[in-house]
């Protein structure tokens, strides 16, 4: 995605709440939820996500075998290209060290979800703080506030201009190899998106009559922001959070694949599994297929739900 379309998409999402002149935030959500329930996209996305979360939560307990033990090491012969495919005992077959792929897949789901959620939260929280400051300054801060807003927004523009994976890889390379690094790197990439989104959404609310009314009643600015503008600006952020989970999972997997993730490669994680499978692709392509399909379907689930939520919230997309 180029910078301009990325920024434009954020602006568009930010405007969603403002477009609905008549309804309050609460009824907008009620209507949106009604529409969501009938959206096939949303249902499919929801089911996929639910399945993924269940797998991540219970996976380590239901995994049939140890994901780390080289239990069947004597059955895999790398030098002759002899691998073990799916069978009764090992549903997904064995990996290159004779470990149960199915167990690694199940346990790996938890790592993948953990990285996705934590990095999304990092981006959301820091981004939201910046967005609130910038949005509040722009709507209610007068000339000085607008200058603050301009500076903050130009910084986020610069961050948005960098390709996200490149930015994440650079951060990870500087900080050194660890799971925390991956979470922070992927999270940082999300910061400008959330900041810009919330700020745009708040600007759209700032010109509303109810804000004007609150101002003329003499309510303090801080209170107007917290009790009036912010609650009405949050819906696009929630949509973005869902979409961000998809990109966070993909980017975290990409960093692990590039070897910037958990330094202990015996810990199962889908990106690491994909990276390890690469060497044996000629002889054992299925080793790569399981984690790849896992990543794709999970990311697709979050994207479907996010897009469905966006549509449900956007009056212009109503059928």
């Amino acid at each position, binding site marked *: 995605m180029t910078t301009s379309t990325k920024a434009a998409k954020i602006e568009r999402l930010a405007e969603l709440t403002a477009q609905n002149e008549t309804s309050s935030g609460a009824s907008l959500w009620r209507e949106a939820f009604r529409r969501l329930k009938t959206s096939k996209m949303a249902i499919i996305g929801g089911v996929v996500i639910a399945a993924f979360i269940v797998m991540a939560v219970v996976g380590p307990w239901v995994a049939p075998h140890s994901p780390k033990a080289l239990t069947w090491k004597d059955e895999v012969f790398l030098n002759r290209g002899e691998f073990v495919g799916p069978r009764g005992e090992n549903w997904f077959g064995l990996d290159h060290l004779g470990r149960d792929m199915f167990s690694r897949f199940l346990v790996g789901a938890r790592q993948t979800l953990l990285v996705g959620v934590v990095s999304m939260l990092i981006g959301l929280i820091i981004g939201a703080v910046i967005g609130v400051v910038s949005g509040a300054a722009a709507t209610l801060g007068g000339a000085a506030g607008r200058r603050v807003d301009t500076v903050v927004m130009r910084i986020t523009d610069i961050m948005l201009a960098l390709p996200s994976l490149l930015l994440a890889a650079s951060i990870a390379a500087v900080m050194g190899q660890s799971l925390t690094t991956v979470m922070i790197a992927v999270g940082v990439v999300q910061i400008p998106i959330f900041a810009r989104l919330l700020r745009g959404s708040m600007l759209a609310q700032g010109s509303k009559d109810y804000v004007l009314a609150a101002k003329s009643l003499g309510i303090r600015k801080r209170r107007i922001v917290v009790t009036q503008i912010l609650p009405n600006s949050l819906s696009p952020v929630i949509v973005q959070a869902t979409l961000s989970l998809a990109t966070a999972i993909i980017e975290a997997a990409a960093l692990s694949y590039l*070897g910037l993730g958990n330094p202990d490669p015996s810990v199962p994680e889908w990106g690491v599994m994909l990276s*390890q499978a690469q*060497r044996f692709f000629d002889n054992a392509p299925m080793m790569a297929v399981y984690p790849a399909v896992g990543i794709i379907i999970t990311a697709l689930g979050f994207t479907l739900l996010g897009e469905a939520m966006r549509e449900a919230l956007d009056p212009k997309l109503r059928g």
Partner: protein
Amino acid sequence: MKTKKVTAVIGTALALALTASACGGSDDGDGDGKKNNGKKAVADAALEAVVNQSTERGGTVTFEHSDVPDSLDPGNTYYGWVQNFSRLYGRSLTSFKPAAGAEGLEIVPDLATSLGKPSADAKTWTYQLRKGVKYDDGSEVTSKDVKYAVERSNFAPEALSNGPTYFKAYLEGGDKYKGPYKDKSPEGIASIETPDDHTIVFKLSKPFADFDYLATFSQTMPVPQAKDKGAEYVKNIVSSGPYKFESYNEGRNAVLVRNPHWDKKTDPVRPALADRIEVKFKVNPTTVDQHLLNDQITVDAAGTGLQTKSQPKVLTKSAEKAKTDNPYAGALTYLAMSTKVAPFDNVECRKAVQYAVDKASVQQALGGDTKGDVASTMLPPTVNGYVKADMYPTEGNKGDEAKAKEHLGKCGQPNGFTTNLSARADRPDEISMATAVKASLERVGIKAEIKTFPSGKYFANFAGNPSYVHEHKLGLMMMAWGADWPTGFGFLDQIVNGSAIKPSGGNNLMELDDPKVNAALGEGIGMTDADERTKKWGEVDKLVMETASAVPLIYRKNLLYRPDSATNVTVTQAYLGMYDYLLIGTDKK
């Protein structure tokens, strides 16, 4: 040869090698294996014989390499394959005998008329040069050119930084001389004397009985001072061997043609069969394998064997398998234990690890018996001084949990402990082996967390940096090592001698500073009797194993492939188990 550079090569490619037959067992190819004196060549035939022997001259021998050389300048290289290859256009004082099997480890005089004549204390070494050896411009090689070659290669890191600096370390006053580019005095370093044009004398600061091995280095290939342009010399290398450069394109290719001034009568070592030699760099590794299998090229220059991907293609067909050789690569993969990180400062805990490690599973993780044999000594079988031994034997090399626990008890850690295990992130085979080590240690309660680091900084910043090791409690470290020259001293000195412990970039990862080991190494290198010396290296190996500070895991092996058109093919143990590039010819005309 070189440690980091060559092991980098070994590590990646060698790591990917696998082979036809189980350790040395040969397999009769029933296909159209190349004829060898009327017999069909079989798998591993080139380990003990010259396959497809020929004296027929002519044709073009083609090399391909997936990477570039550090330099083709004989005075600026550390890569094992360049040491092997440079002998085509340069003549060192001594060289390894181009012969099959263990004979290939013998040193023979090359530019010199005989091996070095040592003084009784092994501190002064004298060589006589052959008369009538000429450069490609027709001028005669003199001893001053050899002296100059040693000076530029060892003392001028500002221009030529790639090569080893053993001459600098051992020559008298080597620490003071500034090299020929800075020190313009006509006499150069005083400890190399050239009393006449055909005599050269090296005076060392300490006894060094392996000096004839140093003399095999490409650094003793003569360089006429008038033609030297420092780092630019590589573009116009002056040849003293049977081939000279017709063209050289940095990073792309080189073409060698016959040197009209080379005289076979002065050169007992080189058959010089081909009329032309071409080498291409930066060829995709899969393409190199493909070209080799299709008989489009003669040799993969890297000498580290077929990639994992290509191996099933030859191993599943007996006719193809018959064209493979599975030599030892002269390298050892081992698990180093830091004697300065608790609880490995206690020898009993180290012994527990010796017994706990399931070496068979490490071998399996690497790719099976064809990628290497289970090791039990520090010296690999193709290094002078190797003595077969196993101080910590376990059944089937699978580890012995009971014995490991017994030693854990003696160490005061009956329930095991936690530690860290380092490996190089960009070496998937090393990581696989570390994973197997970790799994086997877990059986006795030793929990090791794997930490991976980039190989480029593994020695400078991590495993080879004692303060990092102590601070981050890197008790266990994966390590691979190949000798700079194939003797016990060449292999062991840098990895077990207390004097090799450095604040950064060292290779003695165990920080082993054992007085008995240090003394035995010092004693051995002063012995001018070759047999006595060789015996000593076996003793050093045993002393190191007694400290239990390193677990030998795998003697590495490569899977080499000889195309039908290649003639005179044999593996040389002197150069990390590559084919001997001096002998190789082609029957494609």
